[in-house]
Structures are given as structure tokens and as C-alpha cells.
């Protein structure tokens, strides 16, 4: 029983987070367990988590995407450019931002799935290209965005900021659909044995193309949320996001070989990192230590996995 809990990352990580939370509540009873603090933690990780959902799906099928951080910046900048300089209406600008992100994902997916380019090289190159596009579009950044655009992220529902709701909806819907639809569940077979999946009648290339379009669209949405939350689009936003997201997803139970992981794990991995960071801020530990400790935790998590598999 205990063994089963520990070999299921969703349970083991969930329990670890609860345990950490309880411990922090005892040590910092006035600062940690407050509604204010919790919603701050969730708000801070909402952008990363939305992208992590797509990254989890990619890693289940055995690939990853390094260009997502740049897409976050680009979609925010493009949307802001259309709003501020061309005075497009908000819905049109949003659609344009999302659509152009999807196109970037489509290019990635086409080159990887149909032309056989290595995903790491393709998305590494795209990471640079898209970052450059973001700089071209926005220069040093665009400020003073319209009220209705800022309301997307800055309004609240039931006292909780909107990005948290978006995140929960995306995680919930994708988790449900991935577990229950023949379409999304295919990624487990592709990650488990690509050749066998192909022979089982799964159109592996089309699925790969879809997954890159999907993650780029999520990254585009996350970029719009970020710009709306700040009321400004910065071409430097989303720097390092891709590696943070991959870390969260691996902590959440994915492996680079593919075939394993649950969408919920993406949220839990990000939540774990968020809680660790939050506790360290409250405990006034230097930010430098955060990176060191997160790195150590990642190595430990993977080692524990290996040990469990051996038994």
C-alpha cells in the first residue's frame, strides 16, 4: 500500500506538498497559512502551470519544447502591439495573438513530425527566432494597454484572481480528456513505443503536430495573461520559463523517455516548486538558495524513482 503511494507520483507529491504546508503552518503560523498567501502562490505559478500542461502532454509522448518561453513573450508583445499601435479591438487582438502562437507550434510540429528534425534542435532554434520576433514587435516593451485587456487577468471571481481559474480549468479539462478520450490517450502509446503505435493504426505524425500546436497555443494564452496581469508586454518575459516548466513536469511524474506522467502532475510539480519558493521567501532565505535547493530536489526525485523501479 505504502509502496503503491510512493510509486504514484500524483499521490507522493501531493502528500509531500501537504506535509510541507503543515510544517510551514506550524513554523510560520501568521504568515504562511493565510488566504492572501495561498492565492499569491497560485497566482505566481498559474502562467507556468498552463504551459506545463502542454509540456506534460509532450513528455508523455517522449519529446519536449524549448521555445515556449519565447512564445509567451511573443504572443504578449504581438497582442499589445496590435492593441496599442494599430488600435485593434481586444477580441481581435487576442485571436491574432493565439493564432500566431499556434502557427509557431505548427511550424515546430511540421518540421519535427514530417521532416524528422530533432525536437531539441528545432525548438532551440525556434526559441531564438521567436525571441527575436518579440523584440522586433515591441522594442523595449509596450505599456498602457486598454482596460478591457488588463481585466482579463486583473479581475477576480469569488475573491480569486482570474489566472488561477483559467489554470484550474485548463488543468482539469486536459486531465479529464487525456485520461478518457481516444484522441489524447494516444500520447501514452506513442511515448511507450512509437513503432508499435504506428502499427496499431495511430497516425503518430499527426498527433505530434497536434501536440506542438497545442503547447504553443497554451504558451500564447499564458503570454496574453502575463501581459494583461502586468498591464504591459515585455520582450524579455518568459526567460527561463521552458526549463522551469520542464522541471515542474519531471517532478510531476514525467520522464524523458516518454510513456509516463499524468496531467495533474504538471500542476502538482509547479505547486511544489511554488510552495518551496514561498516558504523560503517567508523564512528570508536568499533567492540564490532557491535555485540550489530546487536543483537538489529534482535530482533526488529522479533518484528515488530509479530506486523504486529497481525493486
Amino acid at each position, binding site marked *: 500500500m505504502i509502496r503503491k503511494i510512493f510509486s504514484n507520483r500524483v499521490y507522493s507529491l501531493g502528500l509531500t506538498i501537504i506535509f510541507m504546508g503543515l510544517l510551514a503552518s506550524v513554523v510560520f503560523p501568521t504568515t504562511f497559512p493565510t488566504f492572501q498567501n495561498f492565492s499569491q502562490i497560485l497566482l505566481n505559478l498559474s502562467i507556468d502551470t498552463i504551459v506545463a500542461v502542454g509540456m506534460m502532454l509532450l513528455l508523455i509522448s517522449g519529446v519536449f519544447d524549448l521555445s515556449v518561453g519565447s512564445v509567451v513573450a511573443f504572443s504578449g508583445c504581438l497582442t499589445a502591439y496590435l492593441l496599442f499601435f494599430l488600435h485593434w479591438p481586444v477580441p481581435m487582438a487576442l485571436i491574432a495573438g493565439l493564432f500566431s502562437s499556434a502557427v509557431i507550434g505548427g511550424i515546430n510540429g511540421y518540421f519535427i513530425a514530417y521532416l524528422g528534425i530533432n525536437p531539441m534542435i528545432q525548438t532551440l532554434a525556434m526559441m531564438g527566432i521567436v525571441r527575436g520576433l518579440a523584440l522586433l514587435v515591441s522594442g523595449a516593451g509596450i505599456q498602457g494597454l486598454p482596460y478591457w485587456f488588463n481585466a482579463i487577468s486583473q479581475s477576480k471571481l469569488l475573491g480569486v484572481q482570474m489566472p488561477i481559474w483559467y489554470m484550474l480549468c485548463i488543468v482539469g479539462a486536459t486531465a479529464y480528456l487525456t485520461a478518457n478520450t481516444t484522441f489524447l*490517450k494516444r500520447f501514452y502509446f506513442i511515448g511507450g513505443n512509437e513503432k508499435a503505435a504506428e502499427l496499431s493504426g495511430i497516425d503518430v505524425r499527426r498527433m505530434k503536430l497536434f501536440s506542438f500546436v497545442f503547447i504553443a497555443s497554451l504558451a500564447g494564452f499564458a503570454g496574453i495573461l502575463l501581459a494583461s496581469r502586468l498591464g504591459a508586454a515585455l520582450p524579455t518575459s518568459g526567460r527561463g520559463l521552458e526549463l522551469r516548466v520542464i522541471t515542474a513536469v519531471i517532478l510531476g511524474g514525467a520522464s524523458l523517455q516518454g510513456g509516463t506522467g499524468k496531467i495533474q502532475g504538471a500542476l502538482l510539480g509547479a505547486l511544489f516548486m511554488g510552495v518551496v519558493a514561498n516558504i523560503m521567501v517567508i523564512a528570508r532565505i536568499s533567492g540564490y538558495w532557491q535555485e540550489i535547493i530546487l536543483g537538489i530536489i529534482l535530482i533526488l526525485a529522479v533518484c528515488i524513482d530509479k530506486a523504486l523501479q529497481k525493486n
Partner: protein
Amino acid sequence: MPLHLTNISKSFGAVKALQNIDFDLADGEIHAVCGENGAGKSTLMNLLSGNLQPDSGEIQLNNKVVQFKNQTHATVCGIAIVYQHLSLFENQNIAENIFVDQFPTTRLGLIDYKKLYSETALLLQKLNFDPTLRPQTRVSELSAGQKQLVEIAKALSKKPAILILDEPTASITEDDVIVLFNIIRQLKATGTSIIYISHRIEEIFTLAERVTVLKDGQKVGVYPTVNLSKQALIALMVGRALPSTTNQRTKTEIVALKVERLGNTYIKDISFQLFRGEILALAGLVGAGRTEIAKTIFGALKKEEGEIFLNNTAIQINSPADAIRNQIAYVPEERKTLGLFQEMSIAENISSIFFTSNQPFFHDAAKTSRIASDYRKKLNINSASISQKVAQLSGGNQQKVVLAKWLSSNPEVLIVDEPTHGIDVGAKFEIYQLLKKLAAEGKAILLISSELPEILAISDRVLVIKNGRIAKELTTAQTSEEEILKWAM
């Protein structure tokens, strides 16, 4: 350096690959080893080259008992092997390939390129290698025959007393074969002993003085080639023991599958009919094009010419998904790499057939697990439960999982590629029974097998494939292993 093997045995799990083999090789002798696919030739060579260790028995080299720890050790002792599958580094040049594990070095420990290239040139000269090709030529630019010569040069660079050649002519042209034979004779003249493995009977008679025949992992005997005929040698190779099955023919006259002039890079002009209730076997040597025929019908290989008819209607198959939609199933060879999702459960493996694009949007997990438990019982899949990982199952049970998966797609045409490869006798028997039962239920079965006794035991007709073409159609009841082999070789 004389070599003696006494009482060598080797098993893989329940499969006895070699049993009590005696073998001896004299100085400067060319000794051929032959047998059908799976007779134990490769295992024997792997034991001699140090890649495998015998379970029991003794290897004597130069009248001293030796135990090869690994291939390097065997090389040091004077045995070098040239593999059937070329194992060169395409991205490196000829010299680097030959000296990969023994680069000459300068006093500073750096690679001595001058010496590397001059020694390679010397070796190539010895092999009468095409003088336009230099030691610096990339291996990727060479022909298959030239690559084979590089492999031999690599083996010779270790100055072996015994050279093992495993199917050296399998992938090279006639001209290259002549060059190769001259080199082999030259080596023999300089005192090198050679063990020569080949499917091509003529070559054995041209080159070897003696031939050892293996069958089912056992030694049939060793014979001088001078007083042996080709027919006699084939007769020695065939006739392996097999669990017997009841022979009830259920073939009908209704055509289920018809292919006409199917062709692509691998196969040419393939036309045949497959009837309901029939088991049609594709026989032939490994690499003759049998799997390629199956994969082309199934849409896993591109069809360039020809047409496929199902129940007398022409169908378009461009991908495995198309084939599945038309109720054609293909149980691939190499179940581990092509058939199974190793880290997934029995239920998930069986359900993997329900993810094509014409399936309903929501996956019915309850239905598929019901199907999985049904088949677990029906096919007698020996396991703890349907949620057990397939990686933990035996080969025979894994094969049953793959069969169950494809049967649950309810196919009319079932293509099975080497369904009993590497599984124990009991499971083999169960799979024969299952295939016959399916034929009796009216399914059309295309069986690809390298085991002739298997083909004779369960098929109705045999198509012998050679070099990508149908060499001969035979009726199982009126043929023999000898006849099939004659057409296949």
C-alpha cells in the same frame, strides 16, 4: 591453431539453443557450419567469439582449455569474427573503422595517424582492395561488398589464427563474392583456419573441406564435402521435431484477400489469393522479402505498384490505420520492438488497438478491460491480472498478448509474422491450435515463418519467396522441407 569443442550446451530460458555440441577445426581448414534458421549457428559462433558463455562443456584452443570472458578476450586468444550484419561506423573512415579499438599512438599518447593510414593501406593491399579507395575514405561511400571487405580487414588486423565468417555473402554482389572467395583461399594458404557459415549451399561445396550440420540446437554430424551431394546435405538439415497438431483442413473457395502485382523497393510482382479458412504460409530465407510483403499489404511500407482486393473489392491502403479499418490485422515480428508497449499493462496493450481515428471520442475503459480479461482467459495468458506489466511476462505470454490485441480488432485477414519466434514448445503448440481454430472460424490467415516444420504442420499452401519475388507455390500436403528449401535457396 586447432580448436576443439566438447559437449557444449547453451539455453536461453526454456529454449535450448545448443545441446551437447562437439566441433573441431584443424589448422588451415575451411570448415562450414550449416542448418536452418534457428538451428543454433549464431549461438555457436557467439560462444566462440566470446559474446556468450556456454552453460556447460569445454572449449580447447591449441590443446589448452579456455574460457572466453568477452569478445576482446577471444580476439587476444586468436579468434576473430566477421558478423552477418555489418557493424561498421558509417561516419568514420576505413582506417578508423579497422583500428577502432587499437589505434596506434605516438609517444605522447596521441593517435599516430601516419602509422594508422600506412598500416591500413598495407591491409587493404593484402585484400586486393580497389586501389582508388584510400584508408581515408568514409565507409558510407563504400558498396556493400567493399564494406564486407573492410569488416574482414578489421578482423585480420588482429592477426587471428581462426577467422569466423557469418553469412559473408548475404548482402554482396556476384563479383564481390569471387573477390571474397579468392581472399578466403589466400588466407587458408597462409595457415588461417576458417569457420564459414552460409545459407548458400553451393558456396559450402566450393569452399569448405568439411561441413558440420546443426538441427534444433543439436549436431547432426560432420561430413567431408567431397563425398556429399547437395540433396544429401539439405536432407540432413531438415526434419526437425515439432509438437504435432490435429490436421483438419478448413479452407474454403471464398477469396478473402487478393493481391495483384504488388511491388516496391523490396518486393516485385507479388500476386496471390488468400481464401477464407485457409492458412497460407510465406516461406523463404531471412531477408527474402516475406515481412516486406506483409508490411506492404498492411500499409506500413509504401506500395508503389499493384492492387489489393478484399472480398473482391479493390481497397486503398496507405497506412496501418486504413488496413485496420478494412479488418486486416498484422502481428509483427520482433514483438519487443514492434508489438508491445513494455511498460504498460496487459489491458493497456490489448486496448492499444482501439485508438485509431475512427474510434469514438471517449475511450471506453470498462469495455476494453472486459475484452482484455476475456482474451486473458481465452488465450490462457499466464499472469497475475490484466493490470500486470507485459515486461514481466514470458515470451510466449507476451506473444499471446500481441495476438489478443489484434484478435480484439476482429479481423477477417490475420497476418502473423514469426508468431512463435523465441518461445517455448508449450506456448508454440497453443499458438498453432489457436491459428487453426481461427481458420476453422473462417478467418484468412497469412503466416510468415522461418520454421519449416511449423509451416508444414499448420499451413494449407506455401508461397516460397526468394529475392523479393514468389519463387514457387506449393501445396503443403504434397511438399516437403527439402522441396521448400530447394526453391528458397
